[in-house]
Structure formats: C-alpha cells, structure tokens
C-alpha cells in the first residue's frame, strides 16, 4: 500500500527507513507552536507582525522560504472577521475590553441575538451558530515523486536515507526552478538570502535519532512523526474511528490511496482532512510536473526545432533553384548577386 522512492534516487546510503509526518487536522488547535519551534530550530526569521494575512487571524499567510511550517486558518463561511481591536480596525462594543482581549462567546452571542436586545442570550445556540474554523498545520509533503527534486539543476535537492527531500543550502545557487516545479507551493526563494529553502523534516535531528522540532512541540499531537508505514496504519485507524463517530468526510490526503489516485506517488507528510482539499489550499491531484510533462514537451519542442531546421534548408534550396532576374535592367543586379559569393 505504501509507496517508496526509487532506490536509485536515494543520495545518502545508510540503512534507514522511510520517516514521515502525519498531521491530523481534527485535533489541531491552531496554537502555532510548530511554527515557532520550526523557526527556532532552523534559525529562520520572523514573518512580521501584520495580523490578518490569508483572510484570517494569521501572521504568516503561507508557506515560504522562512516559514517551513504554517498553520492555515480556514474560515469556512467566507471568513467573517469580527472587527476586534486586535485586528486594528476595532469596534469596541463587541465584548472586547479595548485591550486586545476578546470574549468570543460574547461576540457569538451578540451576533446570534442581533435585533432583540432584551432576549435572553442562549450561549450554547450562539456558539453552535459560530462559523466553523479549520486549522491545518501545512508543511513540505516530501513527495515520492518530488517535482522540486526533479527540477533542481545543481543537485542541491536530494533524497535522504529517510526518503525525505532535503535542500542542501551549501549547493543551491538560487536558480528558482524548484519554486514553480512544486505543485504544493512549498519551496520558495528567500529574497534576502538568494537561495531556495524548505522543510528538511529536521534532517539534522533525524540523524541523531530525534523527532523533528514541530512534532516535538505539538501539544495535541496533531503532528505525529514516525515510521511511515506505522503512521499510515495509525491514520487509517483514526479515519475509521472518525467515521464510526459520524464524521463521514474524514479522509487522508496523500496516503492510503489506490495507485492510480496517488498524489505525487504518495506524500511522505500526509494529512487527515475533513473538507475538500482546496479549502486548505491543496490541489485535488498532483504529480511531479517534470515527470508528467518533460517527455511530451521535449518531444514536441525538439521535433518542432528539427522541422524548423529542415524548413530553413528547404527555403534556401527552393530559393536557389529560382532563376536569377532577367531582362535588360537586371544585368547589374545579376552581376551583384554573382559577386556576393566570391
């Protein structure tokens, strides 16, 4: 069931097994401890203090060169951001004290009871009426068929003994080809640094037998790390449990697929989701763009080039066969034409 990278692709030959992440979004609380742990361990800069990126209460916005873990905040109903002081365009009559604190229950109650000021506030109903809010800790997928790895012209991107995809920062020359080659929008080039960067699945920690920083810090174990096969097994049992509880839409993104449905040959870091993938900014289907397109594109392009060369030759041979200008006035031109080649 589980898929493997081609053994010939593995660049570092040490006995090891495939390691991966299983990110269970149903237990994620959106605390962003994983982001902070990742930044601390990997010596990455902050993303700035602008609040409200990505249509929700988010500082980070998206995965990037300096953000290798990103907790996506997904507002289900188009994202009603209450005007709270913390967002900076505040209305203070919503239960916020004006100091940036917010009583979400009071906000919900007020929204539910709008119109009837005297009505008793049914807090439970108000909370039930609140918009759904999804959290998902996004990360590099460490694909089996990795587009970035196929694209990299310098060999900076390699497959490690753990079958993860790692970018060697001391080899990368910043050509930027891996950026559009990633179907998940993970790799990015750092404008300050000039090189591309992405999650290494804490390769340095793995080598010393330690769990990656984000998984270590996750307080609810939404991010689980371990042997890939074991993770798939746990994830499938988790799906079974959620189905038994009536959450029929719980599914795995990137693991336990039929071979024809696999995402990029199977994702080393896969997810348990409850909404269609586009809600989380993930494509419904993905494959290494290089493996998918290079052969037909090269065949068409090189074939056209050969045709063009043949066409040029034909044009010259055809033009050479045409008679030279005739008539009295054309004598000088004929002489000039003959004179050119001498």
């Amino acid at each position, binding site marked *: 069931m589980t898929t493997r990278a081609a053994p010939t692709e593995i660049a570092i030959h040490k006995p090891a097994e495939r390691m991966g992440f299983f990110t269970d979004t149903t237990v994620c609380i959106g605390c962003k401890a994983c982001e902070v742990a990742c930044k601390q361990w990997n010596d990455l800069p902050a993303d700035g203090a602008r609040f409200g990126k990505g249509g929700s209460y988010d500082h980070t916005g998206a995965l990037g060169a300096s953000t290798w873990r990103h907790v996506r905040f997904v507002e289900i109903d188009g994202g009603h951001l209450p005007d709270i002081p913390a967002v900076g365009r505040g209305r203070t009559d919503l239960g916020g004290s004006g100091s940036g604190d917010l009583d979400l229950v009071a906000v919900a109650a007020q929204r539910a009871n709008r119109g009837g000021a005297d009505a008793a506030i049914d807090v439970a109903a108000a909370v039930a009426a609140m918009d759904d809010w999804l959290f998902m800790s996004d990360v590099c997928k460490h694909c089996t068929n990795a587009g970035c790895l196929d694209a990299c012209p310098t060999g900076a991107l390699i497959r490690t003994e753990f079958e993860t995809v790692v970018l060697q920062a001391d080899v990368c020359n910043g050509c930027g080809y891996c950026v559009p080659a990633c*179907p998940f929008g993970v790799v990015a080039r750092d404008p300050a640094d000039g090189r591309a960067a992405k999650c290494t699945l804490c390769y340095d920690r793995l080598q*010393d037998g330690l769990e990656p920083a984000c998984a270590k810090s996750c307080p609810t174990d939404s991010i689980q790390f371990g042997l890939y096969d074991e993770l798939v097994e746990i994830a499938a049992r988790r799906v079974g449990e959620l189905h038994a509880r009536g959450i029929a839409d719980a*599914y795995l993104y990137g693991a336990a697929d039929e071979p024809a449905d696999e995402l990029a040959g199977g994702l080393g870091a896969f997810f348990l989701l409850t909404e269609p993938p586009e809600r989380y900014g*993930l494509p*419904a289907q993905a*494959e290494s763009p290089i493996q998918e397109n290079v052969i037909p594109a090269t065949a068409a392009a*090189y074939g056209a080039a050969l045709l063009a060369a043949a066409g040029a030759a034909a044009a010259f041979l055809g033009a050479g066969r045409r008679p030279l200008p005739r008539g009295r006035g054309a004598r000088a031109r004929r002489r000039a034409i003959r004179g050119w080649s001498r």
Partner: protein
Amino acid sequence: MTRRDTTPALGTHGEPGDWRRSAPGAHVALQRARWQDAAWSYLFKDDTRYAATAPADMDVVAQVNRRMRGGDLGPVHGPVLNAPVWTWQVPLYFWCGGVATGSWFVSAACDLAGDHRSAAIARKVALAAVAPSPALLIADLGRPARFLNMLRIFKPRSPMNLGTWSLVAFSGLATAAVGADVLGRSRAARAIGGANVVIGGYVGSYAGVLLAATAVPLWARSRLFLGPIFVCTAAATGAAATRLTLVAAGLPIGHPTRSALGGIEAGAMAGELLLSSINERRLGRAGLSLEHGAAGRIFRAATWGMRGGLVLHLMRGRLGPRAHHAASVCYLAAGLALRYAWVHAGRESARDDEAVARVARAAVTVDDRVSGGRRQQRLVASTRAPRAARRLRRGPAELVRRASLLAERALGQSHSVVGRSGTGGSGATPRASAGS
C-alpha cells in the same frame, strides 16, 4: 525584508556545518533508540478513543479519499502555488537563445545552398546573440557566484540542467566555428556548424520545455505548444536578425539567400500565429492570465507585431525593401515581447488559485467546465486521462527518470553530496548534535 541579517547561528554563512561529536558515536541527550521520543503521546494509548483499535479497512479509506478529492470544485482558499521568481533577465535570455538558434539554422541552410559567405556572417550573428546569454542567466540567480554548480552534475531529467549544458556546448561550438571562419578554415567551420544544429535545436526549444514542466497551470496546459511556439519565434527572429545584418553587409536584392530569409521569417511567424491561436482555444480558465493585465497587453502587442510584420512582408513589392526591413524589426520585437508575455502570464497564472485548483481537478473529474464570461461554453479537455491510462502513461516518465538517475550515477556525481554533514549552511544548523 531584503536587508535581513542572514548570518547563521552556528558555522559559516553558506558553508556546510563543521561540528564534531564529543565522542565517536555519542548520543544526544534525551535521544531514545528508533525515535521513541516521538511516541510519548497519550493519543497512542488505549485509554483514549483517538483511533479505532481494529485494523482499518484500507479499501474504505481509499474510497473516501477518492470521494473527497473528486466531484465538483468548491471554494478555494489560496495560495496554492508559489509564483515563479524569475526576473526580467530570463525572457531576454530566452530571446537571445532563440535568435542564436534561428541564425544557426540559417547558417547551416546557407552552407547547404552553397552561400558560404552569408553562412559565415550568420554564424557571427548567432555568436553575438548567444554571447550575452550566460551573463543574463547568471544575473538571474539568487547566488550568481555559484553559477558553476549548474555544471557540477549532468541531470537530463531537469530541463534547466540540460539547457545549461546545451548552452555551454552551443556557445563553445559556435565560438569554434566562428574562429575557424576567421582563420580561413571554412570546411572545418561548416562541419562544426552542421553538428551544432543538433544542439541548437535544444537551445532554441528548451525554454518551452522549461516552462511547461512546472505546476503553473498556463504553462503546463500549453506543454505541447510552448516548445513549438518558441521554436517558431526563434527561427523568425534569427532569420530576421541575419537578414538585417546581411543587408547591412551588402547582400544584393534578388539574391536567393535574401528571398529565402524573407520566406523563413514570414513562414515561421505565420506558424507561430497559428499555433498560438490553437493553444489559446484549448487553454480554458488557465488562459485568462494571457488575456488580462500587463501580460495580456504585452501578449496582444506581440501578436499585433507579428501580424504587422506579415502585412509589411506581403506589401514589400509595393512599399520597397525598407518595408521588409521594418517587418524584420517587427518580428524581432514581437519575439521579445512574446517571451516577456509568457513568463509574466505564468506568474499571474500561478497566483490564480481557481485556475490551479481547476487544472488539478481535471485529473480527478474529466468534465471540468469553465464558468463565467464568454468562455462559458468551452469544455476544458483533461490534460490527464483518469486512472488506468495515467498509470500507462507513467511508464515513459519513469523510464526517463531512471535513465537520468543512471546517467547521474554513471558519472559518479550523485555521490558527491555524501559525506556532507547535515544539510549545512544557515538552513538547518545542528544545534543539538553532540552531547555536551
């Protein structure tokens, strides 16, 4: 943002880590064998109902996976892709490479037709066009000093790598051929020139492959057309540049070379217009970025430049040779504008989350209809056949990947990374290794 201090906490900037363990084979504090430190969680124990205790039915899981990733496209919460980061040098480099290729084709054809004087001039034009290419290619890199890393491996599956190698080979052979011309060894120059056509074919066309082999919807959906479109403009711009140069060098009116060059220009540009219009029709939602915004304006300008050039070409009998020269200039400008439009539109297309999601969905649901606007009736054909056909089609892709890996291995380059400790550099500094 760009003025950030990127000095790593440990080690030297941009160099591999050079830490050492306190003792050989020493363990890090808190490390437990086989990553057992990852298994602390209360979730794994039996007293929670985190996961079902019975083994899961994998068929059921596969089914629900398929159901949730199929069906109609719902709301998209982007961003899905990261947009390409290439700057203005890249389309200019594509153009230079195209002119060089076109001129080289022309020079080989001149030789074939027996006009060696024109062939030698065309080779010089090609060399002049290819000369700024390396500089442009290097200037676009995030770390220009590391350009030679491109040549540390031979990796046929990466169009960028193969393209760099072919550019190196092409410019080397072009220099040799021009050198032979200068030294009066015209037979050697002709032989080298003929051989270089094979490499030039890739230099002029790989830009299309490079763009097509990405996740950007516009480029990926045009994968069968981008290469031929770039080849057509390469042939036209190369012939135009050569024609103008030859005319300046005194190639007389009525000379077969002159009329052949005019025919190549016009034929190639007509071919481009035809290919472009077919491609636009089948792009669907992914083609919007080629119609709107700055990219759309540049693209329309390029198309009108080509059309204008063709009109001038057709009216050259009445307007005289100057009109024909103007047509050549039109082709050159239109070729450059076209490359800028394609690269720029790709950037916009990657940011078009809806298009990205639609193109991805086409693999699961073939009946992906475009909504909105005048394109409402058009059916977006699937780029990928579902299921069984997809597996079949993976065969050749896997073959090339394996062949590339074999080539890399045979040349012994994929081993050169082994032995580096960790990932090195500022990216992942191994702070906890080696117990203190």
